[in-house]
């Protein structure tokens, strides 16, 4: 791949009256394989089986690894809960974090973490065994989100006002972790790296720029020696920080559903053609709770709304929960193909 290839591929498809279809789907793969979140996020072969099943069943143009916001934090030794059927999570740390604690964190080699190695093995399997025309994507925890997982979200929010130095030190550290994991993923075969920065969505534009946007911008700049395409995904209503998301220099921005307040047309209007806009069928209202008929009409409506933008990629607003009915996923893919 080469930088901005996503946009070029999207543009080429657009010329042929087609679209890239790339739902953020991982967990429903277990419904196909009979596995669980817990097993698949700890076992590379089970993880791969879910990826393979999704590709065989739905033929998406991009296949994303399981969304796992605990991967890097867990590799850094943060206490993590692994329920059998729900995504893993990190409880708010009881003790507050001090700059001195960073010294200990810096000693940890995340590449030696077995779960992270598992994700990389899964990516290698994907690169070796999946059809070459399906782009392979992995998720990376964004700098402010990782800082918030280490500090606790509320402390991180308050630190944007009251403990800026500590937070900057932590974001600086977090972004280095992101870079290290990104490079490992690229070596394993990832072609698209999707930076997840959900916690950044709660910040004011100024705070976002200071504690997230600027770090991501620097990261993307440093990653220019690689061919991977970098996408920035933030869930929830991001209309107040769209300009700053675009300023990071990402090859694509992936956004949440209309129901959360995101207006994809407004976003597309201000997005340069060499950057893709990815979104944004509601993962809950439509994909989880509606029936296939409503999924189909929602996709058709979105495709129609975005019909003049060559750099649009059809996707879901956020990761799909395992409980999404498979017939809804089929309806999503079929409607996307029929109306492209």
């Amino acid at each position, binding site marked *: 791949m080469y930088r901005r290839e996503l946009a070029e591929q999207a543009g080429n498809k657009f010329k042929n009256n087609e679209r890239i279809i790339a739902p953020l789907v991982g967990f429903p793969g277990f419904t196909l394989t009979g596995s669980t979140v817990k097993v698949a996020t700890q076992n590379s072969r089970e993880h791969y089986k879910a990826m393979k099943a999704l590709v065989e069943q739905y033929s998406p143009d991009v296949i994303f690894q399981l969304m796992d916001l605990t991967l890097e934090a867990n590799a850094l030794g943060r206490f993590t809960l692994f329920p059998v059927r729900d*995504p893993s999570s*990190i409880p*708010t740390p009881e003790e507050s974090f001090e700059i001195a604690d960073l010294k200990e964190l810096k000693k940890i080699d995340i590449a030696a973490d077995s779960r992270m190695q598992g994700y990389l093995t899964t990516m290698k399997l994907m690169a070796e065994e999946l059809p070459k025309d399906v782009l392979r994507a992995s998720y990376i925890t964004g700098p402010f989100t990782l800082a918030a997982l280490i500090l606790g979200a*509320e402390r991180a*929010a*308050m630190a944007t006002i009251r403990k800026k130095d500590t937070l900057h030190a932590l974001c600086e550290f977090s972004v280095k972790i992101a870079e290290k994991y990104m490079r490992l993923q690229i070596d394993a075969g990832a072609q698209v790296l999707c930076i997840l920065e959900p916690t950044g969505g709660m*910040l004011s534009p100024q705070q976002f720029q200071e504690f997230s946007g600027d770090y991501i911008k620097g990261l993307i700049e440093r990653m220019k020696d690689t061919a991977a395409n970098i996408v920035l995904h933030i869930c929830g209503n991001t209309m107040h920080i769209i300009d700053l998301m675009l300023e990071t220099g990402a090859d694509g921005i992936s956004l949440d559903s209309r129901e959360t307040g995101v207006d994809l047309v407004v976003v597309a209007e201000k997005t340069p053609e060499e950057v893709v806009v990815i979104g944004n069928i509601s*993962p809950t209202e439509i994909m989880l709770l509606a029936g296939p008929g409503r999924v189909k009409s929602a996709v058709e409506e979105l495709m129609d709304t975005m019909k003049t933008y060559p750099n649009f990629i059809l996707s879901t607003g956020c990761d799909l*929960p395992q409980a999404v009915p498979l017939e809804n996923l089929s309806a999503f893919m079929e409607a996307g193909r029929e109306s492209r």
Partner: protein
Amino acid sequence: MKELFESIAGQIVAGDSDKVVSLTREALEKGATAEEILNQGLVSGMDVVGERFAAMDMFIPEVLVAAMAMTDALEILRPLLTAAGIKSDNRLVIGTMEGDLHDIGQRLVGMIFEGAAFEVINLGADIKPQAFVEAIKKHKPNLLGMSAMLTTTMLKMDETIKLIESEGLRDTVKIMVGGAPISPDYAEKIGADGYAPNAATAVKKARELLASV
């Protein structure tokens, strides 16, 4: 005194806890009652915070800092309010659903309700349906708030409401739900009384719901 109350409100909005606390003490020394300081200083300040939050003129970090400043002042006023026999008319029990550790939004909602002169009992995160039922029995709130950040845990809201119904408690309490994956349609579908997209509008919605009782 009016100026002092306005200063308290202003420092709440600015999130300056030290100033809010010292101004609260000054107002008490000058003879203001705890209730006056609460309503004309703290609540009035948090009203502005709520409005500016809803208008996206303030964001979660600033609202948290403001709410903390209010909480610090409330610590001083609470014993005085209790001694004066002043009780809030409204009691909110709030918690995040079982399996969900996200509590920042829910805590914020709780603090903003405190700032709107509600008595708030915050159960915390990862609360089982049965624990909500027990809390209703124990605290007898007129409002119950349930929060979920995950598409998996939001489904527990439905289960909890059904359990509240089966325990015969549904008519004793208005139920509001919120959180990132929740929509008005979902709230209606599971039989909640109300939904709000953020903490600021939640207070407004709650007042409407409780006024209709």
